[in-house]
């Protein structure tokens, strides 16, 4: 087994989620990733939590621990001229630089792509931001909810008579990170041919706008605006979450064949003679009435029974898991998705891994770096810095 990105050197200047996830993937495939954090506080993700036993500690934030696996820790004050000089010296021997500052920040620091490229023409720079590096909203501020809203996702979530719903977790930022990884990898491929680096500009708003199934196409093709439908999906029914005897299950009945098999399994085949329930598409327009008819069967059966009986009949049913239940899911356990990692401060904990098995270059998960853990080693090895220099920089707040 070899690492796909062995020998690739990465500087990760990112804060919080988007750039950090991109660089985490680079590290998983064997790139040597240096996480560059401001001295003292470090990446602000370290202050977010949740924390071990709810006690705030920059080394036990779940957000930081998860997003910075496999990286080496360097502290560097980019607001200090000496800090920027050190960064530029590191850039000389760097393949990929990842950053997700607001677009004004890197140019203001004198670290725009043109400047860095002049130092190292092979440098690939990945910039991930809320709205991209140009355009009228460039400097607008967002968080997860605002990105859901302006990406067109939020309008589709929720009950039609109630406010649209923000989605779960930090999906827009992760989208920026995933797209950023593809941009970095594509730029590495291009560099194999052309020899030069390039600038990758990822807008989180564009990422969200590019992952719609029907929203944009339906408006453009037929002029209809997709509305939110409550806890179900467009066009066909039942694609929804149902209560059952001992919890919740979900169904995603998407074809006539699956629909007829569901009605057969639940002894409701007579419904096919009623035009309202003849197809999953017709059913979609009478969903509440259909749900009343299906409810007695669901209430009479437990979730394991329902999911397995449906799947044996080739009906797409699934469990409705919370984040703890997913950790106990036998399928995830069979594939070894969860990894126990030791960390000097946070201890031994269970981490989500990567969603793919790869026969030649499998991704590897290693614990996150401590703040400044490798500052000494990196600067002496990469730049030949002396003990006195390091002491000097430390005294000046550079590292």
């Amino acid at each position, binding site marked *: 087994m070899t690492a796909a990105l062995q020998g690739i050197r990465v500087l990760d200047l990112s804060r919080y989620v988007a750039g950090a996830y991109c660089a985490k993937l680079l590290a998983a495939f064997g790139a040597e990733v240096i996480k560059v954090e401001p001295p003292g506080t470090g990446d602000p993700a370290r202050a977010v939590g949740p924390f071990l036993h709810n006690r705030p500690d920059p080394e036990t934030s779940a957000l930081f621990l998860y*997003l910075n696996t496999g990286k080496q820790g360097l502290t560097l004050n980019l607001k200090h001229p000496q800090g920027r000089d050190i960064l530029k010296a590191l850039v000389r021997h760097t393949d990929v630089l990842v950053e997700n500052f607001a677009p004004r920040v890197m140019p203001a620091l004198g670290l725009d792509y043109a400047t860095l490229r002049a130092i190292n023409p092979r440098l690939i720079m990945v910039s991930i931001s809320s709205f991209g590096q140009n355009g009228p909203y460039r400097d607008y501020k967002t968080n997860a909810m605002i990105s859901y809203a302006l990406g067109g996702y939020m309008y589709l979530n929720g009950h039609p008579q109630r406010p649209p719903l923000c989605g779960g977790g930090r999906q827009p930022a992760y989208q920026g990170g995933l797209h950023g990884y593809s941009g970095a990898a594509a730029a590495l491929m291009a560099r194999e041919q052309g020899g030069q680096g390039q600038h990758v500009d990822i807008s989180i708003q564009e990422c969200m706008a590019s992952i719609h199934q029907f929203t944009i196409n339906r408006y453009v093709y*037929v002029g209809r605006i997709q509305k939110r439908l409550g806890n179900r999906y467009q066009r066909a029914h039942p694609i929804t979450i149902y209560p059952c005897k001992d919890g919740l299950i979900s169904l995603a009945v998407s074809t006539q064949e699956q629909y007829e098999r569901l009605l057969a399994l639940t002894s409701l085949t007579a419904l096919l003679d009623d035009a309202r329930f003849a197809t999953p598409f017709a059913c979609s327009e009478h969903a509440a009435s259909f749900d009343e008819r299906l409810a007695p069967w669901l209430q009479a059966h437990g979730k394991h029974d329902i999911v397995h009986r449906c799947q044996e009949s080739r009906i797409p049913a699934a469990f409705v898991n919370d984040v703890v239940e997913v950790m106990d899911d036998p399928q995830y356990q*069979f594939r070894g998705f969860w990894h126990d990692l030791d960390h000097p401060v946070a201890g031994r904990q269970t981490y989500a891994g990567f969603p793919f098995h790869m026969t030649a270059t499998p991704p590897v998960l290693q614990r996150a770096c401590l703040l400044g853990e490798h500052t000494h080693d990196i600067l002496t090895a990469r730049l030949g810095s002396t003990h006195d220099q390091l002491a000097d920089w430390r005294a000046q707040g550079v590292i």
Partner: protein
Amino acid sequence: MNGALHGVRVIDLTRVWAGPHATRMLADMGAEVIHVTSRKLVGPLTVTRETARILGVYPDDEPGERHWNRNSQTNDLTRNKYDITLELDTPEGLSLLRRLIAISDVVVENYSPRVMPKFGLDYPRLQALNPRIILCSMPGYGSQGPHRSFISYGTNVDPAAGLASLMGYPGEAPHMSGNAYPDPVAGLFAVGAVLTALYHQRRTGQGQHIDLSQAEATTALLGEVSLGTRLNGVVPPRMGNRHPRQAPHGCYPCRGDDTWVAIAVRSDDEWHAFTRVLGPAAWCAEARFATLSGRLQHHDELDRHIADWAVKQDAYHVMHTLQNAGVPAGVVVNAEELVNDPHLRARHFFWDIDHPEAGMLRYAGQPVRLSSTPTRLYRSAPCLGQHNDQVLGELLGLSADELATLREKGVIGDHPLPR
């Protein structure tokens, strides 16, 4: 100018959304993507106008003579690809596919795990054909394990993966995404894995098998939440549009029908900026709203005040005014507003693509922007089987007579077949 993946050939056996989304990105990056489909899997032979209206996927709800060439999802996902048809249950069809794989770099498929082995296309046999080949399989739950044969779609991978448990109105059930979100998530992870494998292949000549689980892909994007529960034992509750450490944080009605603005005040500084925008409103000065803990505690009153203010305003006016004051705010855009979004337009995000049977229409572009090898439109979406002659003739050297024979036998064609 060549794209980043110039010279990479991909055999695309994917269907629906997750797989086609992945191969579309590879095509946008300049790879030669050959979409191979069985005409038995294209769907119904005819579509009535009533069904067309319900589906809402044909221009002006008109299915036309060849509805399969006018479907918005197909045309959206096959841009930049070549399209050929092959019936894999015929010896000729299977043999032609194997010959294509022998001269390609990547095969991507999102069938259930039974299908590829059934056709003798499992990875060991593909590797025997072509040691450099990369096979990316992307079933719902992975190719091995107790749930490997579960039928799944993005819509119910969402609750299975834990994502739905994090969305919903407070105190109510988990809520599904309105957008089958796990599909593109799996597609994007597939792109990342394929590009990584390609880089390795270019340096070593070695291919490999990528076995991707759509469910795990979704759960991977919740990793900080699951780790958090291990650290402090708390499973986060559904909070609607609220935030545990920011207030006000919500979605407020504006002037007009079903028009909303999302507002997130993340700090005391942003709160002060927010109150300056709201100007003389007396409630802004109330001491209970002066601190984060006070605002979190009295969030319901805060929401009522903000809604009373916002509902008289234009949503875009609210967004621009707050943003200019330094407060995060965004219109909850619907399809029409998204397509007309001034910022997306200023960045030329949308691509206008002509299609011989659907016409000139607008589509989401490619968010991965590469400065010197840009992702771009190389060719419009193909009609079914449009490139049968070109691909089989030029790449495999089939003669006009051989192509005619294949067409007569139904191995290739440009119309769907009954299932």
